[in-house]
């Protein structure tokens, strides 16, 4: 018999998950934006 516990009853709110992701996605997006700006130099004369 499989007695493993699953997270079928997840109690963490969607808001807390979204906020946690925002903390890392926002600085990462700023970094990607700056990199894309730099990369554009390759395609402009």
């Amino acid at each position, binding site marked *: 018999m*499989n*007695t*493993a*516990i*699953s*997270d*079928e*009853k*997840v*109690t*963490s709110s969607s808001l*807390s*998950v979204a906020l*946690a*992701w925002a*903390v*890392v996605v926002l*600085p*990462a997006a*700023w*970094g*990607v934006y*700056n*990199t*894309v*700006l*730099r*990369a*554009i*130099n*390759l*395609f*402009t004369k």
Partner: protein
Amino acid sequence: MSTFSFLDRERTIARPGYSRWLVPPAALAIHLAIGQVYSFSVFVKPLLGLHDSAGAAWSQKEIGYIFSIAIAFLGISAALFSKWLERAGPRKVLFVAAICFGVGFIVSAIGVQIHSLALVYLGYGAIGGIGLGLGYISPVATLLRWFPDRPGLATGMAIMGFGGGAMIGSPLGTQLMGFFHTHSHYQPIAATWVTMGVVYFLFMMFGVFMIRIPRPDWKPAGWTPKASTSALISTHNVSANSAMKTPQFWLLWVMLCLNTTAGIGILESASPMIQNLFLGKVTAAAAGGFVGVLSLFNMGGRFIWSSMSDYVGRKTTFTLFFVLGTVLFYLLPGFSSIGLFVLTAGVLISMYGGGFSTAPAFLKDLYGSAEVSAIYGRLLTAWSTAGIVGPLIVNGILDHTVASGQPLRSAYPLVLHIMAALLLVGFLASLLVRPVAERFWMREGDKVAPSYGAH
């Protein structure tokens, strides 16, 4: 109760109902921070401009050692502390990593202020390097336990952050130096490093407080471990000490080392390479753009290739890296189209990044998850080795070409063809990977790191 009891492994075990999707942001916070090391090059030119009271300056080579020491200490600390990582649990490990990484910046700032290179080596190189080693493995191993159904996706998410860290660190470092140069009387590099030390410490603290480990008997909702569809996916665990005795560990070590060395063949000299191969057609600013394009491929490859490996298998993924890589490295110097050159180099760098993120999932397949952090820590010495060997090959050929009076552009085909040959050796190593022999499996009653169940 101790002040630091919140760091204990027992306090890190997730409560019932804790969403596993809260854990990747914790891992990403750590990796986005420590990935700053790959943007160290933004400090090279400002450091070259520093002089002591007698007018002496540091050489390019001396400054280059700062990065090399950091990467060497990453591998050494990951290997030396690999067993402790398993025992202590991720929160304690990441707390120590954050302190080391932050203090490393501060010590280096003092080194810059008093013009002591030894202090910069100690700070950014040794202390910060230990922070890198501790901070690199623990989030990856923790995510592997939360995503037993998608180990490639899990490692891809964390290690993508390490690639992305350079994208944050580079503009952050440049803009902070510019700010302190024009708006303060502080030494700009020292003030930037103090600021970065504090900011990165706080950012890593987010990861420290968010990180959780699943209960040993936890599994994702609706997921039941399937009977293995591949002989290379073991349902048994192997201890770190036993793993070192298996040929699979050393084959994977060789594969990671060669894949990394080949990637360094492009990354080490990306800007001068494209300018020399397309002489008069690519400006220095456009070459900077090429480095930016490679960073994007590096980050994307870390996520895409390892996620793909969940479906096609780790061995197939690595074999593809080596076969496609050998062909593309061989063809690359012959391209006359800039667009084709950039795209091909991008694909090659995506596979360099993909090697980093697919390797820990490969380890989990071969050895189970019971001691995967300890095994992974030891595997990372392959990266440190490549970090030394790769630049040695590239710079050795470039120096020899310049010394013999030949144009620099004539050196790059040789560099890239050597990388193709190295990948061919990697391909042979990948063919030899077989399932781990039964005699290495942990038996009932063998001691497993506490609280870490074996999915």
